[in-house]
C-alpha cells in the first residue's frame, strides 16, 4: 500500500501546513521536526481527524479525503496510547475485529497472534491501567495492527518512555513493521530515533517538508541549513565570499575547498561539516587546515568533544580518545574538501 499526499494545504490560525509526500509500499517514513512543525497535523489529516483545506490524500491511488476516520482502515498508535481504561488487554485488541463482526474464532486467533508478536502472551485478562508504559505501548501497537490495516500511523509512540526502553521498543517496532511489511508513517522529534529506524525521513520545519531522503544522505549530505542543524552535531561557518568555479569558500576560519555547493541558494550561505570529520594535524601548511585554542573539552569514553576557538568562531571537533590535548592548548585541524558542503538558509524550488 502506498500513500500519496498531494499539495496538502491547511491553515490553522497563524500556522500553515503545506506538504506533498509519497510513501512507497512497505516503507517506514519518519516525519521529523521540532514541536509545532506540522508533523502531527499531517498525521491527523491522513487519519481523518483533521481536514485539509486543499489537496488530496490517496491510498493506492484511491482518494480517501472524503472518508470519515472510521472508514479509512488506517491503524494508528496515539502518543498517550489511548487504551480504553474500562477494557482488558484482550478487549482492547479485540475491539476493532469485533466492530468488523469477525467470528469468535478468528478474533481469538488474531488477538493471540498479535499478543505474541508484541511479546505479551498471557496478558489477556490484565487491566490496562496496571501495565507499565512499555507494555501499554505494545498493547496499543497490537490493537492498531490486529485488523491488518493497509497503513500504520505512529504519533510519537515512544515519547512517554525512558531512554533505555525507547531504544529497545523502537527496534521492536521496526522488526514488526518489517515482518508485516506494513507501510508506516512515524512522527517523532527525536532525530536519533528517526535515523535508527527509518527508510526515509521527511524533515519538517514551519509547516513545510524541507528535505525528504534516506537517513545517511540526510546526515552526510544535508541540502538545507535546517536539516543540517537539526540532525546530529554540525559546524556551520558563515561564508564571506564564494568562488563557484574553484569550489572555494572564504570564511572567518580561512579559505576552504568544498566538495559541494548548493545550486539554488537564497540568503546567507554556510560551510557545513561534521565534527567527526575533523582530523588533528601537526599544522604543516597544507590546504583546508586551521588552528585554534581549545576552550571546551568533554570526555565521553570513546571520544573527546572539543570546542576550538578559531579567530572569533567556535568549531566543534570530535576526536578519538587517544588524542592528547588539554584546555588552552593550540590545536591544528584539517577537514577534507569532500566533507565540506555549502548550503543556505532557504532554497529556491
Amino acid at each position, binding site marked *: 500500500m502506498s500513500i500519496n499526499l498531494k499539495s496538502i494545504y491547511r491553515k490553522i490560525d497563524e500556522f500553515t501546513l503545506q506538504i506533498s509526500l509519497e510513501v512507497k509500499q512497505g516503507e517506514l517514513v519518519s516525519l521529523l521536526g521540532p514541536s509545532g512543525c506540522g508533523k502531527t497535523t499531517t498525521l491527523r489529516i491522513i487519519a481523518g481527524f483533521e481536514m485539509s483545506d486543499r489537496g488530496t490524500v490517496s491510498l493506492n491511488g484511491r482518494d480517501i479525503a472524503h472518508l470519515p476516520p472510521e472508514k479509512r482502515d488506517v491503524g494508528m498508535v496515539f502518543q498517550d496510547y489511548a487504551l480504553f481504561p474500562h477494557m482488558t488487554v484482550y478487549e482492547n485488541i479485540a*475491539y476493532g475485529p469485533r466492530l468488523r463482526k469477525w467470528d469468535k474464532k478468528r478474533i481469538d486467533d488474531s488477538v493471540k497472534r498479535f499478543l505474541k508478536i508484541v511479546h505479551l502472551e498471557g496478558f489477556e485478562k490484565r487491566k490496562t491501567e496496571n501495565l507499565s508504559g512499555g507494555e501499554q505501548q505494545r498493547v496499543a501497537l497490537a490493537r492498531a495492527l490486529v485488523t491488518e490495516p493497509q497503513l500504520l500511523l505512529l504519533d510519537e509512540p515512544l515519547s512517554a518512555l525512558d531512554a533505555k526502553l525507547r531504544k529497545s521498543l523502537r527496534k521492536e517496532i521496526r522488526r514488526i513493521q518489517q515482518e508485516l511489511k506494513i507501510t508506516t508513517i512515524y512522527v517523532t522529534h527525536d532525530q536519533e530515533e528517526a535515523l535508527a529506524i527509518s527508510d526515509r525521513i521527511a524533515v519538517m520545519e514551519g509547516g513545510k517538508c524541507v528535505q525528504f531522503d534516506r537517513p545517511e544522505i540526510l546526515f552526510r549530505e544535508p541540502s538545507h541549513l535546517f536539516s543540517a542543524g537539526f540532525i546530529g552535531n554540525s559546524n556551520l561557518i558563515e561564508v564571506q565570499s564564494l568562488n563557484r568555479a574553484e569550489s572555494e569558500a572564504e570564511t572567518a576560519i580561512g579559505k576552504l575547498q568544498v566538495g559541494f555547493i548548493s545550486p539554488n541558494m537564497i540568503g546567507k550561505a554556510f560551510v557545513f561539516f561534521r565534527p567527526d570529520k575533523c582530523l588533528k594535524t601537526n599544522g604543516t601548511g597544507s590546504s583546508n587546515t586551521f588552528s585554534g585554542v581549545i576552550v571546551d573539552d568533554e570526555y565521553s569514553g570513546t571520544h573527546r568533544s572539543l570546542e576550538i576557538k578559531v579567530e572569533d568562531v567556535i568549531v566543534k571537533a570530535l576526536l578519538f580518545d587517544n588524542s592528547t590535548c588539554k584546555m588552552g592548548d593550540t590545536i591544528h585541524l584539517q577537514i577534507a574538501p569532500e566533507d565540506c558542503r555549502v548550503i543556505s538558509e532557504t532554497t529556491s524550488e
Partner: protein
Amino acid sequence: MNYTGRKVRGEVYLIPAFLFMLLIFYIPLSGILVKGVHSEKGSFSLEGIIGIIGSSYYRKILIFTFFQAVVSTVFSVLIGLPGAWVMSHYSFPGKKLIRAVITIPFILPSILVVLGFVLFFGKNGVLNNFLNTLGIGDIKILYSFKAIIIAHIFYNFPIAIRIISSLWAKIPQSQMMAAQSLGAGKIRVFRTVTLHQILPAVLTSSMIIFIYCFMSFAIILVLGGGPELTTVEVEVYRLAKVSLDLNRGSSLALIQSTLTLLFMFIYSSLEKYKSYEEKLLTSANKPKYTLKFDLKSLFIILYFILILLLIVAPPFSVVMESFKESRSFAAEKQFSLYWYKQIFNPTSNGTYSKIAFNSLKNSLFYAFATVLMTIPISTLVSWVITRKKLRFPAVTELFFLLPLGISSVILGLSYMRLSNMLPSTFKGSAMLVILVHTSISLPLVFKPVLSIFRKIKISLREAALNLGASSFRTFLDIELPLIKSGLLTGATFAFAVSIGEMNATLMLSQPGTTTLPIAIYRLIGSYKFFGACALGTILMFICLIAFLAIDRFDGFGE
C-alpha cells in the same frame, strides 16, 4: 474537502437542549423580570424598583439579609478553620467518622434542619430539658437572630472545613520548614506563608457560604419571625403567597436576582485561584497524631465533641421524636410506631395518614421524574461542549449553569405566574413541579457530567473511530462506560435536590402536589411534631441513601 458529517456545527446538536432550557427556565423567569420593570397598567416603569429602594421597610430587609449572611459567614469560617487545620494535618482514629459526620449537613434538606432545631433548642426541647434537670433553667434560642445564625453555621462550617482543608493539605510541609529554618516563629510562619496559601480557599468558601445564607429560605421562614428577622427571600414569598402582590414581589425578585448573580460572578472569578491550588502538589502522608495530655490535644478533643454535638443533635432529635406518641395533651410521651403505621397504611382514615402517604408518593415520583429529565439533557450538552467546536463554549456552559444564580423561591414565583396564565388544568399539576425541580437541579447534574466528560481523553474517542467505530458506537462503547460514575452522581444529585426541595414547591403548592418537605412544614406549622418527625426520618433516610450512593460513585470528588 472533508466528508459532510463533520460540517454539522456543534450548535445544531444543542438546539433541543437550548429550547428545553428556554421553556423551563428562561421564559418563566423573564416573565417575572419583565413584570418587575412594568407598572400595573403595563407600561415600562421603574416605579416598583424605586419604590422598594426608597422604602425604609425594604431597605431594612435588604440590610438585614446582608447582615445575617455576613455574620453567618464569618462564624462558619472561623469555626471551620481549626477543623480544617486538624483534618489537613493529622491522621487519627475516628477521622473517617468525623469526615462522614461533617457531611451530614450537605444532605439534610433545610426543613429537616429547621425541625431538628425546633426539637433540640425549643422550649421543651432536648437542650432545655437537660439544662432544667441540671437546675440551670431555660435558655431561649428559637425564633431569634441567634437561631438563624446557629442554623446557618450548622449548615455551612463543614463547607469551610472541606474547601480549606483540601487546599491546606496540599501545602508542602517543606515550605513551613524552610520558613522556620530562615528564622520565622510559628505565628510568623502562619501569617507569612500559610495564610497566603490558604487564602484562596478561605475566600471561595466564604463567598459560597455567603451566597447560601443570602438565599436561605426555610431557616429564616420558620426560625426567624416577625418583620425584624425577615430576608428578601422570605419577603418575596410573603408578597406572593400572603399579600398576593405579584407586582411588588416581581420587583423585589428582580433586585434579589441581580444581587445573587453578581455574587455568583464574584464567586466564579474567585475560582480562577484554583489553577494556583493545583500547582501545590500533594505532599506526603500526614503524621499520625498521638494524643498527649497537653492543651493542644484538649482543644482538639473539645472542638470535635462540640461540633459533633452540634451536627448530630438536631437530626438525632428528629429520629427520636418520631418514635414517640402522647395519648393526651398532658400525658407522658411513650415509645410508639404509631406514626409509621399511619404513613404506610393508607387505608386508615385520618388526614395525617393520607397527606403523609401522598406526600411520600409524590416526592418519590417527582424525584425520579427529575432524574429522567436532567440526565439526557446534561449528557447531550456535556457531549457537545467537550466534543464539538462551538463558537462560544463558555457562554454555552453559562447558559446551562445560570439557574444556580437564581433563588428557588424566585423560580417558584415565575412558575406561579406562569401557571396563572396557563389553562386551569395546569394549576397544581405535577408537571409544573417536575419542571421547576428540573431547572433547579439541572446545573448540579450538568456539572459532574461535564467534568467527567472533560476527563475522558479525546484520543480515546479518536482511537475508537480509528478502529472503525461510528460516532454513535464510540459513544456507546467508550464514552458511556467511562461517564457512568458521573451520570450516577448527577442522577443522585437530581434525586436528592428534588426530594428535599421546598422553596419553589411551596410557591407552587396545591393540595394535590404536596411533597415530603411541604408536609413537614405544614405539620410544624400546626405543632404536630411527632408526625413531622416520622416523615422527616423517612426523608432523612432517603437522603442518607442518596448520600451513600454519591459517596460510592464519586467520593464527593475526593
